[in-house]
């Protein structure tokens, strides 16, 4: 029994508009996201005394954000990282509070992921290859798609996985996004749309890749005692794992199978901490930087057998109305690319029963459960959700939440 299970909660969530032209600094994006999360929680600046963020030298630091909002900090840390940071930092927030350093922590990510710092690179890199470039970059392997593709190709070879199977991830998430007013891509797509979109790097098509966007996102973590007095029903943090790596996480190619994600190590940790197993999870929130990354995570965390992810993601299980919907918001593929935050925020909304879909009375928690286009995206009475973070095939994090 993990002594911290259910002792902490997510009490506030906030985000900015998701766009490809924010016209604002990451400072302004972070400030608005945290302000929205504080208002959501019913907290004032005086109530928040901790801050955590993550960045790739592309954001604004906590003291600046806090200063703008009139927040005086007892603890902050701005960590280097992208994907798989969200879950890990929620764990660190618990640690900071448990250590007595602070009481309530806002975790944020603020990024102009389209107009300033595109994760795949903009072609504006300094024109020099250094020692660190030799193992991969000098060979034209610089973007995330280029760096991950051989792992997926090997999965296809070893397990017979097909492009058509993983295209179903984009199809499912596009259906979900069509019921999400704030999603960047709200149009539903078909398997053929994915397969006929242009190649980025074979085996990945354009529509296998997520939607680079400008955005700010935030969640607020505090103790369950503090949470009980606040505006929203607290969403309990059952367990966290992060950031687990495979052996030689900097060059995982040395160890087989290269097509098995680091969640193979994080799964046992997060499930033991939470006291549940994959069969208890009602909604998964995968890090769908690409279609196939969802498949990798579902296999590694044990939602299906290794090698059977292609069948799992194309079976309808992951769609709204299916047995275990994945990314009901549309995820990174369709809602917004926020380096993991939006899938955690969505799971909080789902557990509250307050998903902001097209149902007329969603703010009262009244949903139609009609998942047709421009309809509902609330899963019926979810009890437990899980987020499956990803930074690469070699690094992952996980987070299990309950109502």
């Amino acid at each position, binding site marked *: 029994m993990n002594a911290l299970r259910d002792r902490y909660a997510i009490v506030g969530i906030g985000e900015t508009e998701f766009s490809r032209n924010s016209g604002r600094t990451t400072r302004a994006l972070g400030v608005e996201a945290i302000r929205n999360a504080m208002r959501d929680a019913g907290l004032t600046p005086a109530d928040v005394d901790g801050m955590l963020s993550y960045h790739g030298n592309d954001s604004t630091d906590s003291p600046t954000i806090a200063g703008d909002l009139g927040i005086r900090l007892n603890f902050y840390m701005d960590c280097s990282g992208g994907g798989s940071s969200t879950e890990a930092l929620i764990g660190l927030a618990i640690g900071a509070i448990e250590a007595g350093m602070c009481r309530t922590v806002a975790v944020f990510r603020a990024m102009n992921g389209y107009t300033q710092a595109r994760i795949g690179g903009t072609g504006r*890199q300094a024109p020099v290859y250094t020692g660190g470039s030799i193992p991969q970059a000098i060979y*034209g392997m610089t*973007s995330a798609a280029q760096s991950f593709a051989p792992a997926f190709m*090997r999965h296809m*070879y070893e397990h017979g996985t097909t492009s058509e199977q993983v295209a179903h991830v984009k199809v499912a998430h596009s259906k979900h996004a069509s019921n999400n007013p704030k999603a960047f891509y709200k149009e539903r797509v078909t398997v053929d749309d994915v397969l006929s979109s242009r190649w980025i790097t074979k085996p990945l098509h354009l529509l296998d890749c997520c939607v680079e966007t400008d955005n700010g996102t935030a969640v607020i973590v505090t103790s369950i005692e503090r949470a009980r007095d606040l505006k929203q029903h607290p969403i309990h943090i059952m367990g966290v794992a992060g950031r687990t790596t495979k052996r030689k996480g900097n*060059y995982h190619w040395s160890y087989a199978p290269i097509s098995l994600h680091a969640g193979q190590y994080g799964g046992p940790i997060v499930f033991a901490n939470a006291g549940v197993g994959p069969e208890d999870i009602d909604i998964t929130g995968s890090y769908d930087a690409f279609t196939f990354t969802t498949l990798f995570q579902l296999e590694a965390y044990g939602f299906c057998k290794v090698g059977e992810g292609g069948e799992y993601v194309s079976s309808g299980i992951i769609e709204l109305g299916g047995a275990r919907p994945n990314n009901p918001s549309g995820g990174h593929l369709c809602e917004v690319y926020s380096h993991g935050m939006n899938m955690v925020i969505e799971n909080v909304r789902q557990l509250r029963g307050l998903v902001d879909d097209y149902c007329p009375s969603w703010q009262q928690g009244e949903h139609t459960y009609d998942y047709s286009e421009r309809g509902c995206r609330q899963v019926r009475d979810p009890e437990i959700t899980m987020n499956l973070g990803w930074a690469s095939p070699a690094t992952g994090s996980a987070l299990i939440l309950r109502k």
Partner: protein
Amino acid sequence: MAEYLGVRVHVPENDPTMLAYLQHAGTHRLTLQRCRDCGLLQYPPGTACEHCTCLDFDWAPVSGKGTIYSYEIVTHPIHPAYRDRVPYPIVLVELDEQRAVPAPDYALRVIATLVDAEGRPEHEERVAIGARVEVAFADLGDGLALPLFRLSDEPPEHALWRYPG
């Protein structure tokens, strides 16, 4: 000045290991770090032996032969150096030496581009998992070279597998 595809290659003096790797490649022998304690090879070059943490290495030439373990065909270039090179294959080559040693799941695997006899990107239809390859070199200047791979005349290690379609 060393350069590759029109881009300067600058390995600073405080990174003598990576510099030595490229210098050995400059003699057109693929040469890897070999631990002076446990005797095992490793790739890519590092600052300690990944098998035993020893800090001292020799350099050991290897055959440069291997098998394509996985690959991709890049069609959307990112780095400016590759704008005129698409489509180009990136291959993950499993070298013949030290396979499944010291553990069944370990191998010396090298990410590189696959080139033809003229050093241009190899044609997609010739790239396959299971195909045998041998090392080739791109001279960078200043006595340095970058290891690449090209298809060899040897029969495939197992039935060839290509991305369908």
